[in-house]
């Protein structure tokens, strides 16, 4: 069995299984936890929980100017690489084929040149995020191994994918296999590390929104 056969077959199957198992396990155990009831009195004129949750989610999509320029940079940079990743994952014809194989739906892809530009911008943005993390004393203080590892495991597929598309460094089949293995690593790590925010972001922002709405905190 070649490295590519291993990556396309057992490695991705195992990774997908771990991903599904881990995500369901974490979400169900989190949502099924007994909730402590909020004993505080609802302020007069407080919005409904649903409205507060939505407001919370929307208002957290940008940071107020008052929080300073570095926060604005982090936010914009965050948007850039998240958007870049979405373009790569959902716009590249080869990736659409993977999703089509899994979910049966497909849509037209973007030209490879567009994807390459998106990938380079994404990579630069990810590097900028890391630079900020290691240069800012506060960020460094609150960063854990989890953060750095999650960064690496997000960056690796972008880098290896770019190398595979441009045939740099090794033969295409080797590069493609390495790229697929980095995806497998990402899927395995996903439920247990910071990547889980892709699901949890909805819960945390909604919960914060409800709590603030009830007490009348401005957000």
């Amino acid at each position: 069995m070649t490295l590519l056969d291993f990556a396309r077959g057992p490695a991705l199957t195992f990774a997908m299984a771990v991903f599904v198992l881990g995500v369901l396990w974490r979400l169900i155990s989190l949502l099924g936890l007994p909730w402590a009831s909020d004993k505080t009195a609802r302020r007069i004129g407080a919005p409904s929980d649903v409205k507060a949750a939505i407001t919370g989610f929307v208002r957290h999509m940008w940071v107020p100017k008052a929080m300073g320029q570095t926060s604005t940079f982090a936010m914009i940079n965050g948007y850039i690489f998240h958007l870049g990743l979405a373009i790569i994952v959902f716009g590249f014809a080869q990736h659409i084929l993977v999703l089509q194989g899994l979910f049966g739906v497909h849509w037209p892809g973007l030209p490879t040149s567009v994807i390459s530009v998106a990938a380079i911008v994404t990579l630069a943005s990810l590097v900028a995020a890391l630079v900020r993390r290691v240069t800012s004393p506060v960020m460094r203080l609150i960063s854990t191994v989890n953060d750095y590892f999650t960064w690496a495991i997000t960056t690796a597929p972008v880098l290896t994918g770019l190398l595979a598309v441009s045939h740099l460094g090794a033969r295409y089949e080797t590069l493609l296999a390495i790229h697929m293995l980095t995806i497998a690593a990402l899927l395995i790590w996903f439920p247990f590390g910071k990547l889980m925010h892709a699901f949890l972001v909805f819960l945390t922002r909604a919960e914060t929104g409800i709590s603030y709405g009830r007490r009348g905190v401005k957000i």
Partner: protein
Amino acid sequence: MSETGTIGEALIAQGISRRSLLKYTGYLASILALPPMASRAMADALASAKRQSVIWLSFQECTGCTESLTRSFNPTIEDMIFNLISLDYQETLMASAGTAAEGAMQAARTANKGKYVLVVDGSVSTGAGGVYSTNAGKSNLETLKEVAADAMAVLSVGTCAAFGGIPMAKPNPTGAVPVSEIITDKPVINISGCPPIPEAIAGTVAYIITFGKLPDLDHLNRPKAFFGDSIHDRCYRRPFYDKGQFAKSFDDEGARNGWCLYEVGCKGPVTYNACATLKWNGGVSFPIQSGHGCLGCSEPGFWDRGGFYKPLSAAVMGNREIIGGAAVAGVAAGAASVALARKRRAAALAAQAAASAAVVTQEKTP
């Protein structure tokens, strides 16, 4: 039978002028990607070289490889290869049969000990001592070991000889293995393909005779001159791949426009062969030009790679049962965690209630 004279003498004897040889070496230089000016030196080298004794053994195969090499019936430039070699044994082509044929092989082996090139097409059956494929009362396994012992080099022609091929496909009932697994003490050159490109077979043999050494080989022991580039790299449909224009089926708009066949399973990006440049049937076409994706027939294991029409980027074992099982396990693990948390909470609440009850009781009994 091998002749003792040089190729130059043999050509003169047959009334073939040096011009033919020069034309052939020019053609060889082109397919071997050598500088065109090398053709004269190659012609001189060939003229003074002896005809190369070749013994050709066919094992578990379909004769497609022999067909590929001998497909032409007109005396043409490509047939010049047969003036360079002395094909001393080839079961499909030779006129003699039975003991006379076996005798011819023995004679060639003795006369050219250590100097002949052994060409093998077909995989070697090793199951049950090799009884699945025999000839003249001997298993292929036995014949290969015996004949390879005195050979200068072994040429595994075709994917069966090179990598096991179709006979080795799961569940491999005959225990088929590639030649390189049996012959480990000699150079084994793989000229893979199902069948291999005739120019690749002839070009490699001609290279050995002309330069008296083996050509540069890749990591799978294939001559780099023919297996150095992927089909994808030299494909004329590559611009469509780069633009993201793909045929979605074999009869849609994209297919009619000649767009890239990646999405209908083309294995060109991971297949190394010269189909896109040398092409087939004397340069007429090759599979992709005829509208079908590359099957990857010159690569090991192409027969067991999960479907010719499955795109390369799609996972091949994205098994629904396994993912479904994982989902069930995930839900179960989540439910168990929830149950455990609720049980702990209930226990903690009960303990708290008991403790406060105890305090009340204590207060009541001074």
